[in-house]
């Protein structure tokens, strides 16, 4: 079935495009937060509820999301050294 059909994602260049597109979206989000922050500072809009202080930093959630994701994957990778057993371990 459809064995020879070429898909859009089969082309390596399209994966690159997706990757850089993602980087661009992140930059846009960061800039949007900066703009929203400045508009908030000028009291033109309500920036966002700041409960803890640090959650009001520009792009705090972006940096936090990136760092948390990174740490989770690295921690998981290291945990595997202790927790991994062969598939028939319980048999």
């Amino acid at each position, binding site marked *: *079935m459809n064995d020879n059909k070429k898909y859009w994602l089969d082309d390596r260049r399209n994966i690159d495009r997706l990757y850089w597109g993602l980087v661009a979206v992140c930059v846009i*989000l960061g800039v*949007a937060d900066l703009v*929203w922050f400045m508009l908030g500072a000028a009291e033109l809009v309500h920036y966002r*509820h700041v409960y803890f202080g640090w959650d009001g930093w520009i792009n705090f959630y972006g940096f936090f999301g990136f760092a*948390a994701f*990174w740490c*989770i*994957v690295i921690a998981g990778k290291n945990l595997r050294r202790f927790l991994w057993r062969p598939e028939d371990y319980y048999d």
Partner: protein
Amino acid sequence: MIEALPPGLILILGALLIPLFQKRLQPILTLALPFLGLVQLLMLEPGVSHQLRLFDYELVVVRVDRLSLIFGYIFHLAAFLAAVYALHVRDTVQHVAAMIYVGAAVGAVFAGDLVTLFIYWELTAISSVFLIWATRTEAAYRSGMRYLVIQVGSGVLLLAGVIIHASATGSIVFGKLIGEDGLLSAASPGVVLIFVAFGVKSAFPFLHNWLQDSYPNGTVTGTVFLSAFTTKLAIYALARGFPGTEILIPMGVVMTLFPVFYAVIENDLRKVLAYSLNNQLGYMVVGIGIGTELALNGTVSHAFAHILYKALLFMTMGAVLYRVGTTKATELGGLYKSMPVTTVCCLIAAASISGFPFFSGFVTKSMVMAEVEHLHLTWIFLGLLIASAGVMEHSGIKIPYFAFFSHDSGIRVKEAPWNMLVAMVAGAFLCVAIGLYPAPLYEILPFQGIDYEPYTTGHVLTYFQLLIFAILAFAVLVRTGIYPPEKRGVNLDFDWTYRKALPAMISWVARLGGGVGERLHAGVSSQLVDRTYRLIYRLHGPTGVFARTWSTGAIAFWAVVGLFGFLLLYLWGR
């Protein structure tokens, strides 16, 4: 007339009729039952209750209020979708088990007293295990056995708790059980036992492994049913009995966090989903622990949305299992080419569970998060935020990426059967609909008049930042080759204690006992040991005095002797 029946009973009684029908008609009956049940529910108004007198206790077999109604609605809706998904199944056992299971879960959320709750509680355990056994493999049989022991064990704890609680207070009403101080340490032993019983079913840390052990072993369609009812029944029970119990807040955060790490390294994608389920329960448990109206609304609405997107995730992985024969990430990849509709449904479920704005998880989970912020619970908030990035990792990215994208495994299969597609598309539609237009869901939440608006610019922006930067982290990790490749194997979890350590300990004790016997025989005095063995055999062997069948008269005589002895002791004690 239909509204006079206890909710859930239509499903249970209907399930018993299923075997009377031809195999190809049975699935249609399983569609009709949740539909009828839902019609009945729509006729019920909050405030209705049916009582029944049993000895000295008043059983409230049915109690209808807003909390039970919303769980009733979603249970029926989930059962209907799962029944559509299982339309192709020609296995009487599965259809009967599934309908009894759903009926028991519905009955339990409408139970107004603890005894009725206990009966339904055990019925969910006994019926649902057949959805695991129906896989009909040795692994599924063993896993089902462990599941049954733990689930029935939870019921036994519940019963013990209810007995102690009832004898202490004289009440079996299932209302708020925890005191106003919210301290479990100040609660009575009966209440603590009930709490632990609920905890087992809610998959509290260290009590959680039945979930990851059994759900991946369920049948393709059975696991969809399993994912919806057992744990959410437990969440309902906690929300009813233990709102504002402080210990639940840190407990919930731990629940959101630890499965995240396991999910990263787990190879079986249905097991990843089981860990992810555990993590989602954490958010609900935190909401119950906070116990304010907004937090409880958050918990209940999150349970509602969660049942739909989690069932949808299990449906998509079920479709993969059905077509490919495995859900191991190491074997999959590139399936978007042959299962495009399943892929899109999986992506929608992934976006919903991750809490992307405009999808269902966003409008529900954020209520719990908002209350954590209002109360300035800094560490709790940070924990939940890390867990949110974790959800993005395991359910948002890992599931769709490794099944449908990643490297092309070369597997070419047919798209899922039409009935599976209908169920998945309907589930996906609901995930988006709730996200875009949450008002109808908010209207049926237990507490009314709570002002909550998820769609503020600041809020939407923060969630997009959190999640899209997390995706960026994934992209960078994969591109740089740091992301760990999938690997066949199992990962040790707490079930190691009862699957490895305990059996090893038992055989060690047995060996020790055998050794002692032999040493006694050889070292002390073989004659003495032999004589002891002979004596024991004479008394307890097939013809021994203690093995004999006693006549009623003899028993009556010895009973009288015993009672007389007791009387003498009593008089002497005075």
